[in-house]
């Protein structure tokens, strides 16, 4: 990738969680291998205009629509830093617990390639905007204990994206007759986030990437869309025969466009490297591509000796100054982040690790949940409804929580009706589709349609007595020991009341009467 590569494996994690390392160690015939994984994540910052000019960042339009003389590097043009990009980068840095540099600068990273209009990329080399941080990543895998691991983050820096080459006659350069270049993406702002080599399994790598995406989406600095390339991960991976051994030869993997691809690519590559070492095959320093179809990594190019990018400070851009006032102003705008929310949901609402994780996955869902709880409903009930029918509806209709007709206060009203014994869960489930579609007051619907629960013991007793009189055979069988028949009576009772009988009270009265 760049010169940081060379030092990458010399930086040893200070806080590797031993337990997870042991749990993650890959066994093989000859012993135990420890994988060492680090990620370089490129996040497109979601500003309307590009990092150094006012050209639009819209994705997916016709080629070379969103370009201007600066994007194309025409002679005499100059870059001017988009202050929104700086704000987003600083906020992202703070969310990753990085130290924000008071003074930093841009450098030119030089290499010739037609997708790079100036043949140098404006990036940050030795004075990035943010350095030395960490995030806590919750690692959950089916059949294994969920654990939290702190992953170190080396740095975050700002840079411009390159354009895109379209090879005609082949999907690769090899075999193509000619190539076209589209500069729409050129100059889109990127934050490159470099982790420390603290990751030990494919799952950890995927969870780390997913947490980065979640944080960026919470901040609103990126949509993190992996399909559209607004979040791209490169993995650096090696294996060694134990935590105290020197690092093995590092391989870089590219071209994964989902978290599961990251996980699988790591898992494949770990096994490939172990097998290579054990059979005496050499593991060479190279870049490999993940082949999603074949589920394997393939060699792309060897990386003996790194390229010389001839970095030097960009004389067209002055120093980047972020004073305390500006920095703290931005800090005050940071939302509560997913990690803190997960923690709080468990502490404050007593939710399970799983529930907390699901509810906090998207900021809008979490905010919806919190608004419903704030309106006075019990957290657990709200959590269940959101994760169940509501999430299904939202996903099926591709809605955002902010545009859902059922407002959180209305959901809270419904949950309170259930918890207060005013309606049964069954009734709630029945009226929910209409609420989801149109919104409205659940209480008003219940009142209007007489769906309120029958919780008058006398009324229920009357109905129970009628039921028992109508089914003498079943009553006799019950009293003869077939106690399972109580379910039959509950069913009949609900049928007769249209599901409105208070289930707890009904069971109680029924038991009493059945015993005789």
């Amino acid at each position, binding site marked *: 990738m760049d010169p940081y590569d060379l030092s990458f494996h010399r930086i040893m994690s200070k806080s590797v969680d031993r337990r997870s390392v042991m749990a993650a160690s890959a066994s093989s015939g000859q012993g135990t291998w420890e994988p060492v994984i680090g990620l370089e994540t490129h996040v497109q910052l979601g500003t309307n205009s590009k990092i150094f000019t006012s050209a639009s960042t819209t994705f997916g339009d016709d080629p070379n629509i969103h370009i201007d003389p600066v994007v194309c*590097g*025409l*002679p005499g*043009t100059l870059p001017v830093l988009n202050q929104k990009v700086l704000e987003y980068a600083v906020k992202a840095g703070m969310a990753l617990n990085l130290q924000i540099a008071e003074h930093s600068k841009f450098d030119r990273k030089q290499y010739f390639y037609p997708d790079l209009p100036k043949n140098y990329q404006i990036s940050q080399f030795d004075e990035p905007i943010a350095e030395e941080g960490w995030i806590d990543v919750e690692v959950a895998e089916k059949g294994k204990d969920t654990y939290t691991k702190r992953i170190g983050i080396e740095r975050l820096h700002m840079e411009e994206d390159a354009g895109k080459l379209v090879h005609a006659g082949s999907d690769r350069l090899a075999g193509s007759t000619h190539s076209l270049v589209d500069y729409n993406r050129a100059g889109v702002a990127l934050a490159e986030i470099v982790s420390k080599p603290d990751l030990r399994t494919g799952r950890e790598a995927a969870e780390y990437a997913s947490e980065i995406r979640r944080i960026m989406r919470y901040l609103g600095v990126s949509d993190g869309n992996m399909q559209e390339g607004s979040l791209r991960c490169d993995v650096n991976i090696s294996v060694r025969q134990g935590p105290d051994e020197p690092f093995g030869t590092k391989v870089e993997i590219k071209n994964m466009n989902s978290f599961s691809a990251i996980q699988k690519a790591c898992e494949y590559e770990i096994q490939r490297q172990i097998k290579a070492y054990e059979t005496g095959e050499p593991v060479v320093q190279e870049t490999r591509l993940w082949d999603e179809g074949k589920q394997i990594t393939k060699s792309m190019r060897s990386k003996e000796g790194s390229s010389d990018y001839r970095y030097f400070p960009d*004389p*067209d851009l002055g120093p980047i100054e972020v004073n305390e006032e500006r920095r703290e102003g931005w800090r005050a705008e940071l939302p509560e982040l997913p990690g803190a929310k997960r923690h709080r949901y468990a502490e404050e609402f007593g939710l399970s690790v799983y529930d907390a994780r699901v509810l906090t996955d998207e900021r809008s869902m979490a905010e919806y949940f919190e608004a419903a709880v704030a309106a006075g409903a019990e957290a657990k009930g709200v959590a269940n409804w959101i994760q169940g029918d509501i999430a299904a509806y939202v996903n099926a209709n591709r809605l955002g929580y902010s545009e859902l007709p059922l407002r959180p206060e209305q959901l809270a009203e419904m949950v309170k009706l259930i918890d207060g014994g005013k309606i049964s869960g069954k009734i709630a489930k029945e009226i929910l589709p209409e609420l989801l579609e149109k919104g409205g007051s659940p209480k008003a619907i219940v009142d209007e349609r007489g769906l309120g629960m029958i919780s008058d013991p006398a009324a229920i007793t009357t109905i129970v007595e009628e039921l028992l009189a109508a089914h003498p055979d079943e009553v006799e069988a019950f009293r003869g020991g077939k106690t399972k028949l109580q379910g039959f009576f509950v069913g009949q009772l609900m049928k007769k009341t249209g599901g409105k009988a208070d289930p707890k009270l009904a069971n109680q009265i029924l038991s009493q009467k059945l015993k005789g």
Partner: protein
Amino acid sequence: MAIAEWRQQLKLGEVSARELTDQHLERIAAVDPKLHAYLDVTADRARADADRIDAARTKGDDLPPLAGAPLAIKDNLCTKGIRTSCSSRMLENFVPPYESTVTERLWQAGAVLLGKTNLDEFAMGSSTETSAFGATSNPWDLSRVPGGSSGGSAAAVAAGECIAALGSDTGGSIRQPASFCGVVGLKPTYGRVSRWGLVAFASSLDQVGPFTTSVADAAEILQVIAGHDPRDSTCLNAPVPDYCASLDTPLDGLRVGLIRECFDQEGLDPQVKASVLAAANQLESLGAELVEVSCPRFNDGIATYYVIAPSEASANLARYDGVKYGYRAEGAESLATMTAGSRAEGFGSEVQRRILIGTYALSAGYVDAYYKKAQQVRTLIRRDFDSGFKSVDVMLTPTSPTTAFEAGTHADDPLAMYLADLLTIPANLAGLPAISLPCGFDDAGLPIGVQLITNVLEESRLLQVANQYELAANVMASKPSGSLIP
């Protein structure tokens, strides 16, 4: 004709803008075949612009400060819809879709574009001989060079082919040709004038400035082009004073520093030295106090410059790859050969030499010894000036160690050519404003220039001192005859 005088004549209707433009177009037609100061003459546009000014005057509109002033523009400043070649095969057919900030301000001030002037290719040179489209001659003696890289602009002003011109100065490219051609050349403080639309050579050194026949005219042009530009991050957001206001202020109590290291130069022509010292004495007679100052690192400027400027150039010129615009080599079999071929054929040898030097100086293993070391020395040079300006208001040096040399003299000796910028480079490295103005002539009848330097953003003082000297010395009153000097 001075700009102020022209403005008065236009206002009174004594001369029309069209007449002035036509006079200059005729002069160009008469002398430029011998001089080759212009690469392109924009006669139709010039006449149309002049007619618009006349129409506005007839209507009684207020006229902007440079109304009808016919100017020439160095061909590394982008002019919308008009070819901007940088005197390079690479940009032979490049027509910018945007206007540089400086020229935009000139047109808004009513100036008329006569044409684009010749330069050393991409402003790399000190003689205008590296132009891909032929050299420019010195109007005082056609066998000599006009200096460079803004040789076309300097020669055009000296030969009366325009009222004033713009050039750019990276290491002396305005002041040295001004000196060789006997005109006034001003390099403003780095960041005083926007670089938007100036095709970059060395971004941390490049600065646009005027060529004029008088100091007052230089003040007039600077007034129009100076000031903050949001399109250039390195452009200073400092108020622009009235540069003409202090031109007439006497020099009483002014302290003038003679930089010892400049006068100790081995290669300094004795006639140049004598003339420049006489200029210093003239300032003394005007009430200034002469003080000797030392800038111990002054002579390291050239070595420092020839690391920093090529380093920046190697990146700035990387964009010329034949992919998007500009020259593309024919028949290339691969991307690599297309890029390499386009650059090998599109760039001349001096440009290639500097790209190679810069690429080398930034390479892993050398960057500390060259680029970073040069940046450190640059800081030391700046500090020399800082301490010097604690005791003096303005510093004085020769502009060039010699007068204009014969064409072809340094063709095979780039190092000798580089020495022509010895005395001008330190002001670029330190970001200081500096001016060259005529102070005499040598035995061959060639003009000699004196350079004045002030602290950052002190252009007013710089122009004041230069103007007081110019008025008192009246150097041009005793000018020898030159081949194409009006």
